[in-house]
């Protein structure tokens, strides 16, 4: 028995050594630079065999149509620039287990038929795309049916200034993949910053998505993903996510999404998900919810939004707890009478109740939906009468004797003091 276990240990140790030591021993290194054996990335990549490393030194390479057909690592040193000069897709990965790192890839023209991208992957797995800069391209990084992959530390920057939405591609586009990690990327100036469709069990964290023409983050049919510590700022229409179950969104920031059809976070047909510890600041609408059910919306900050939450009557069984509502024009608005939603222990800066028993929750229920917000929902032009004395009077009377505002939308235990989320935010960051 003892012998057997010894054998196992020895063998597994040997296997480990072989595993760790083998890949570098297997592959050669092909160098690409002006004075090296290879002058062109394309040529070096074509000659590389499985397990090789293609090392590209700094400089400008005017190339496109680089096809990686072997499991190699394509690594840039001293920031080599590959300029496609608008002649088509630049790097196409056609083999699993490929790594592309440290390049600046630029200039891909709009192509409606082929959806050209700077770096494109299709029907593979184990791809790593790390620390690249992608400038002025149609699509940036395009993953298609590619499982177990990593897109990390990239900067994808487009030039959307004079373009319309239909002539822009997405910065990071992932379609039908499982277990993908998208982290520490910057996406700006494209149509959508991060686009997911049929992507499951993936992690999106620490990304910055800013100034995109349409959505900062856009996903559909992408169950089981986790979004943490991302910042979505000043995107044309904010963030819109649809038809998805079982997601977590934590510690994200949604801010400065202003405009007629702009939302901090638009939820359509999202269910059984958690939205925790996020910050919604200066958006036209903080969260817009339609047909969304069983959501846990806890410990978020809603600050200076037009509407903090627009809860349409098609939403059921959503829970709003321990959120801070400060400086919003309207805290909650609705178009009908949503049922079975729970508001509890939130802090509302408009709350004017008292706390006689000193349990830090108000003794009088707070009704976050004001009569005027319902009027504005029904007749948008009445927004012109905001802060009119008549409106304030109407709202005050309605709060005392509610007859029009939905009976069920009420916080029976509003918090008296602003809830401090910052301390546990730091704690969570430390824990990770």
């Amino acid at each position, binding site marked *: 028995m003892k012998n057997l276990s010894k054998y196992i240990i020895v063998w597994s140790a040997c296997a480990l050594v072989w595993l760790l030591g083998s890949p570098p021993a297997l592959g050669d290194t092909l160098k690409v630079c002006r004075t090296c054996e290879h002058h062109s990335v394309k040529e070096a990549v074509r000659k590389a065999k499985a397990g090789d490393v293609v090392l590209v030194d700094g400089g400008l390479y005017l190339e496109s149509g680089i096809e990686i057909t072997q499991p190699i690592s394509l690594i840039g040193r001293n920031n080599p620039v590959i300029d496609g000069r608008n002649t088509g897709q630049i790097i196409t990965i056609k083999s699993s287990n490929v790594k592309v790192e440290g390049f600046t890839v630029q200039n891909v023209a709009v192509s409606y038929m082929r959806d050209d991208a700077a770096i494109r992957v299709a029907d593979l797995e184990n791809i790593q795309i790390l620390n690249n800069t992608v400038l002025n391209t149609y699509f940036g990084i395009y993953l298609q049916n590619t499982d177990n992959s990593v897109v990390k530390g990239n900067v994808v920057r487009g030039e959307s200034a004079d373009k319309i939405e239909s002539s822009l591609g997405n910065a990071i586009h992932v379609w039908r993949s499982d277990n993908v990690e998208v982290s520490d990327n910057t996406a700006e100036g494209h149509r959508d910053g991060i686009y997911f469709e049929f992507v499951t069990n993936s992690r999106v964290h620490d990304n910055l998505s800013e100034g995109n023409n349409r959505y900062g983050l856009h996903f559909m049919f992408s169950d089981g993903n986790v979004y943490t510590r991302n910042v979505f700022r000043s995107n044309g229409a904010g963030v819109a996510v649809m038809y998805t179950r079982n997601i977590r969104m934590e510690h994200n920031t949604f801010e400065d999404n*202003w*405009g*007629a*059809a702009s939302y901090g976070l638009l939820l359509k047909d999202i269910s059984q998900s958690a939205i925790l510890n996020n910050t919604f600041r*200066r*958006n*036209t*609408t903080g969260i817009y919810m339609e047909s969304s059910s069983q959501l846990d919306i806890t410990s978020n900050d809603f600050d*200076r*939004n*037009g*509407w903090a939450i627009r809860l349409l009557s098609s939403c059921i069984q959503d829970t709003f707890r321990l959120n801070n509502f400060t*400086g919003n*024009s309207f805290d909650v608005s609705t178009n009908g009478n949503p049922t079975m939603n729970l508001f509890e222990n939130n802090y509302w800066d408009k709350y004017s109740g008292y706390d006689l028993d000193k349990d830090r929750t108000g003794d009088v229920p707070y009704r976050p939906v004001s009569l005027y917000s319902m*009027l504005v929902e*029904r*007749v*948008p*032009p*009445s*927004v*012109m*009468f*905001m*802060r*009119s*004395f*008549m*409106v*304030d*009077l*109407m709202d005050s009377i309605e709060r005392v004797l509610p007859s029009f505002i939905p009976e069920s939308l009420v916080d029976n235990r509003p918090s008296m003091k602003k809830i401090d989320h910052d301390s546990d935010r730091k704690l969570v960051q430390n824990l990770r």
Partner: protein
Amino acid sequence: MNKIIKYVLYDIVRSKIVVAYTLFLLLLSIGLFNLGGSPDKGLLSLLNLVLLTVPLISIVFATTHFYNSYEFMELLVSQPIRRSRIFLSEYWGVALSLSAAFLLGVGVPVLLFAPGATGLYLVLTGLFVTFIFVALAFLASVITRDKAKGIGIALLLWFYFALIYDGIVLLILYSFGDYPLEYATLALTALNPVDLGRVMVLLNLDVSAMMGYTGALYKSIFGSAWGVGIAFLVLLLWVLVPLLTSRRAFTRRDL
């Protein structure tokens, strides 16, 4: 004319009501700016109070002043001075003193705590509202000789513009909610100087930019120089129409 304005001004300052009004506004503004935290919040609260109190005080003060100086006016009418000149001098005297009070009481704190375009709009709106409501007060005063009736009409006018009008318009908007009302609402706003002033200030504060499609529409209208110009022109009309109507009534009337 200048001489009469001088006498009217002197008379008003001596009564000390304007001084009290200045102090009241000053206290209110400084208090609100210190309470609110951010200057934007202070401006918002100030806007609400300015649009409620300034018209009320202007209209009540101007009406009482008009009736109180009836004898003085009768004396002047017996002199070789044109009636419209007497009337306009009275108007300028009251409007200028109240505007000066407003400038001191609200303009200076705004300049100190929240300088910028929004503050400027607030002060301009307040000034216009003062001129408009003094004109309305004079209109109410020339309609009837009876002081109690005159003050009643003046109060009713204030009540209408500050409260009832918004209620009526909201009712109209609610009843016709199925129709596109964007421009109709704009027109209805122009029919009330208080609303017009409020909208102009609000659309220049951050709040306004967030109010969805309609907010964006109005922002694009009021945000342009053209829109602001039109709005101030409408406010000017609101001064001129009651003023010229009441002057006409005053010159033709048997005193």
